[in-house]
Each structure stands twice: as structure tokens, then as C-alpha cells.
């Protein structure tokens, strides 16, 4: 008992908590600090390199948005107490499915995209179902799917087209109503206006002379921001969000309190697969091709972004906003090292170091929340 005899009229704040400590137990803290640090660093070292003009901002925003899309899924799943190591393979698989359906089989692109979403979320559900039914760690089950999906991603195009990259999706998507939702851009008018008024640069010569250097916000970024907002609201503002925390915090206790833990976990596996498919679709629409090696190692990058964002590997604690900041840090550093003229292989060194720091910080924070010593 940490407090004196209970007196109903007394101030309920028995033990005052310093505002610093209060701030520390916010899961986003690491992400916020990291973001500030990273931006300060690059503002000092690479400000003149073009990193912070319109093109530069777009450059690292797109990369960050990619990380963000998969980080949101990985974050909610991790809070629900599970992992998905098959995210990277799922990205490759989903992209390949779209390419095979639309190019090889010649089906309409909108149908190919929808069918791929159905197949991939079903595989996500299967992942979850196996984990729930067998009680095996999701680490192992999804590791199996990492190989299974990657194998199919190489096998199908090899057998059907005798190659591992299928192109021609841009042509197939011409005039399609669904494709621009993943591969299009918004705000062209605004950027044209910005360009005309000299706020952002315009091309000086060539076929695009007079057009702004950035002609719109890619849908990829819109998806990323949308998923972050939806994910954050679901997690913090709905019943279901409470169930996600509960399922990851202690599945048995949650079950005893009437939380449908199995349903929550399977839905989160499906959501992770959904995010991976969004990523894949945007990528395929942007590149106009699908490659068998797409999405390699993305599962780990997603998990790292989530951990930097303050989520606990053991589940039950974390924040979508934190994960999004983790993804932002990722994107800014990966592209920033290029702008700063630093050898890009150092990015991996940075990743490892920041991951270690994040995990240590998170462990400390968890001790503070639960009061264990």
C-alpha cells in the first residue's frame, strides 16, 4: 500500500507524479524525441543539399509513407500480442498476384486488385487461425508463411511467364477506376499554383518546362496518413481498441472478462495482411511492374519502426502515432544519409543502434508503468 488511510474527501492525487515522469510513460515519447533529433541533425548537416525543398521533402515522405503503411498493421498486431514475419513476403506475393491477374490473365485491373485483397486478407486470417488453434508462437507460424509466400511469388511468374518480373501493368491500368486510388496523385492544381507563384520550383526546360517539380501528393502518402489516423482512432477511442490492448496484455484475463480474444487476434492478422497489400498495390501501380524480390526484409523494418514507436514486443502496450513516427525516422534517415553524402550502408548500422536504444528505453518505461523494480 503506497498511500495513507483512505479518506473519500481527500485529493485523489495521493502521490503526485512529476510531469516529466508523466510524459515518459507516453509510448510516443521515444518516437517524438527521435524525430526531433533526426530532423535537427539533418537540418544542420544537409540543409543545403536539397533535402528540405519540395522535391527532397517528397522524396523522404514517400519512403516514410511506405514504412508507415506496414508499421500501422504491425503495430496493432504487436499490441494484440502477436507478430507477423510474413509481411515482406506478402508484399511480394500481393504485387505478383495483381500482375498475374491483370497482365498474364488479362483481367480488369480493378478486379485483380480486389481479388488480391481478398486472397491476401484470407491468408492473414489463415495465419491467425493457425496461431490461435495450435497455440504455437506467431513467430514460427508466420516464419513458415514468409517462406511459403516467397516461394509462390517466385514459382508463379517462373511457370507462367518464364521470368521473375512482370511488367506492363501501367498500360493495363490505363483508364481503370480503381488503379488511381493506389497509384494516382492528388492536389495537382494546388501544386501547379504553388509552382506558378514561385513557392516551389518549376522545371526550367525540357518537355515539362513550366510544370512544378512536384506535381501532386502520391496516393501512397494519403493511404499512409489515412491508415495512421484510422488505426489511432480504433486503438484509443473504440471498444475494439480496448480489446486489442487486453488481448495482448493478458489473453487469459481478457477471455475471463468476456473479450473475444481469438476474433481480435485473427482480425489483426487480417489487418496486417491488408496493410501489406495496400503497400504492394501502391508500389505496383507506381512502378508498373511486379518483382519476385519485392518487400524483402520489410517485416523487420515494420517491427523496428513499431518498437522505435514505443510498443512492447510482449504486447499490450504501444501507439500507432508512435509507430508512424518510427516510420518517419526511418524514411528521413534512409534518404537523409543520401542527401548528406554519407555512405548508405551506414543506414543499417544506424538501424541496429536505434533499435537497441528503443528496446532499452521501452523496457525502462514498462518498469515505470507497472511499478516493478
Amino acid at each position, binding site marked *: 500500500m503506497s498511500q495513507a488511510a483512505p479518506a473519500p474527501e481527500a485529493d*485523489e492525487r495521493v502521490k503526485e507524479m512529476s510531469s516529466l515522469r508523466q510524459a515518459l510513460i507516453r509510448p510516443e515519447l521515444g518516437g517524438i524525441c527521435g524525430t526531433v533529433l533526426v530532423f535537427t541533425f539533418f537540418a544542420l548537416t544537409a540543409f543545403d543539399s536539397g533535402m528540405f525543398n519540395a522535391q527532397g521533402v517528397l522524396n523522404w515522405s514517400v519512403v516514410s509513407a511506405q514504412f508507415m503503411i506496414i508499421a500501422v498493421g504491425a503495430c496493432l498486431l504487436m499490441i494484440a500480442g502477436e507478430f507477423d514475419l510474413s509481411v515482406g513476403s506478402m508484399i511480394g506475393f500481393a504485387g505478383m498476384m495483381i500482375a498475374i491477374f491483370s497482365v498474364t490473365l488479362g483481367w480488369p485491373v480493378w478486379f485483380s486488385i480486389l481479388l488480391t485483397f481478398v486472397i491476401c486478407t484470407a491468408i492473414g486470417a489463415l495465419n491467425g487461425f493457425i496461431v490461435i488453434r495450435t497455440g504455437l508462437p506467431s513467430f514460427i507460424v508466420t516464419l513458415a508463411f514468409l517462406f511459403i509466400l516467397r516461394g509462390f511469388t517466385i514459382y508463379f511468374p517462373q511457370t507462367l511467364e518464364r521470368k521473375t518480373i512482370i511488367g506492363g501493368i501501367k498500360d493495363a491500368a490505363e483508364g481503370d477506376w480503381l488503379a488511381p486510388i493506389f497509384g494516382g496523385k492528388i492536389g495537382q492544381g494546388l501544386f501547379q499554383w504553388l509552382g506558378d507563384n514561385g513557392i516551389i520550383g518549376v522545371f526550367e526546360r525540357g518537355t515539362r518546362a513550366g510544370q512544378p517539380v512536384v506535381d501532386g501528393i502520391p496516393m501512397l502518402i494519403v493511404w499512409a496518413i489515412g491508415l495512421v489516423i484510422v488505426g489511432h482512432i480504433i486503438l484509443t477511442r473504440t471498444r475494439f481498441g480496448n*480489446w486489442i490492448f487486453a488481448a495482448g496484455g493478458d489473453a487469459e484475463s481478457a477471455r475471463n*472478462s468476456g473479450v473475444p480474444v481469438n476474433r481480435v487476434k485473427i482480425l489483426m492478422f487480417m489487418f496486417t495482411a491488408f496493410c501489406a497489400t495496400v503497400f504492394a498495390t501502391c508500389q505496383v501501380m507506381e512502378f508498373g511492374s511486379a518483382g519476385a524480390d519485392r518487400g524483402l526484409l520489410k517485416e523487420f523494418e515494420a517491427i523496428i519502426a513499431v518498437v522505435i514507436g514505443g510498443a512492447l514486443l510482449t504486447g499490450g502496450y504501444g501507439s500507432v502515432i508512435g509507430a508512424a513516427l518510427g516510420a518517419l525516422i526511418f524514411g528521413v534517415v534512409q534518404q537523409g544519409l543520401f542527401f548528406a553524402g554519407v555512405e548508405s550502408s551506414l543506414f543499417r548500422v544506424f538501424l541496429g543502434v536505434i533499435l537497441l536504444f528503443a528496446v532499452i528505453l521501452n523496457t525502462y518505461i*514498462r518498469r515505470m508503468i507497472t511499478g516493478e523494480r
Partner: protein
Amino acid sequence: MSEPIIRMVNIEKHFGSVIALAGVTVEVRAGECHCLLGDNGAGKSTFIKTMSGVHKPTSGEIYFDGQPMNFEDPRDAITAGIATVHQHLAMIPLMSVARNFFMGNEPTKKILGMSFFDREKADQVTMEEMRKMGINLRGPDQAVGTLSGGERQTVAIARAVHFGAKVLILDEPTSALGVRQTSNVLATIDRVRKQGIGVVFITHNVRHAMAVGDRFTVLNRGKTLGTAMRGEISPEELQDMMAGGQEMATLEGSLGGTV
């Protein structure tokens, strides 16, 4: 005294060839604390699991509010108003008290046709209920992990009471607690009883039972050894009954009756 809320008559429960309960009769009235005492293996756990709908009795009758009842599963019992607070408390340390309090029963409010978790209401109700139980929270967002064992026990009890329990089964709530925490939990039991809820307090600690119990039923080897009112029985007698008499007698001297 009033009619019993729940009456369990001649309950027998067999697991294959093992007879776990061989005729147990217990009744619980509104506003009383009925202590169920018994040594390890006496059948306490089996009995409360039968009461809370986890096990179906092999034979015997259960009457709830005078009506014969047949609980198919724990949900039925919970719906009827029988809440069990297990030793494993169904609390999640990383989550806030308010989120734990409403886990599985979250209040919602509609915004633009979509239903959202009503956090203001959850926070407000939690603070109020906790204050009633004499626990001063720093705030509704304080994590359960920062509470002591006794406080967690109290939160679990408050939660059961808030969600409409008529009978509250407490499975050894004091067994892992220190002296002060125990006294707080016992005070909580007393508070709950005064609200008109029937409390079934399972323990093997006679002194804890004597502190709050109105009636005492001793279980031994799957049978009830009788029910005694408060004041009719001494702690020593209870202790002897629980242990089955003679084995304890030889120890009495060296332990000085302080077990």
C-alpha cells in the same frame, strides 16, 4: 433473516472414479458473508466452480432466488448475478484502471453513427467506484501494475459489484497478501456485504474468516461438516474441524495455536 439468494443442496461432483464433492449443502443470503473454510483438497475449488457454472454437478440441486437453476456455462451464472473473483484476477497490469474496470463491458457513445469508447464516462465511473471502495487513484489512467495486490483485489471486487453481482465469490482473496493489504480487502468485503450482496469468502485462514464472516461452513474431504453462526464457534474449533481433528492436536503445543 431473509430468504437465501442461492441455495445449493446435496451437491455431488464426481470426476471419473474420484469423488470430489460428496454432498455439500450451503446457502448464501443477501448481505451476509458466508465463509467457506477447508484445507487443501477439501473440495473448495470444485464447489465454487460448480456454483459459478464451470462444472455441472453430478447430482444435487441449485436454487437461485428460490427457483431451481441449471447453469450450462459460466456466462449463465454471470448473467444470473453470480460473479467470481479468482485468485488470478483478470486484470492487465499494463492497462489503466479505467480500461481494466470496463474490459469486455466498455461503455460506448455514438458520434456520426459510429460507436466509440466513452472514455469520459469510463473514467468518471471508475474514479467514483474506487473512491467508494476507499482507493485513491492518482487518476483513472493510472496503470493497474502500480497498484498493490490488495488494491487490485479491491478493483476486481468493485468491478464485479458495479456490473450487478448479487452473489460474489471470492477465491482466497487474502492468501497472497501482507497484513495491511489483507485488512483492506477484509474492509472491502465488509463494505460489499453492507450493500446487500451475498459474499462467499473462501479461505483456509481462520482468523481472516472470523474477522468478517457471518456464518462459517467447513468442508472436509468433499463433505460439509456443518454450518455455524458467528459467535457459536471458536477459532480453535474451526481450526480443528478443518484439519480433521487429531493430526492438529499434536502440533498445537509447538505452534501455540497461531496457525
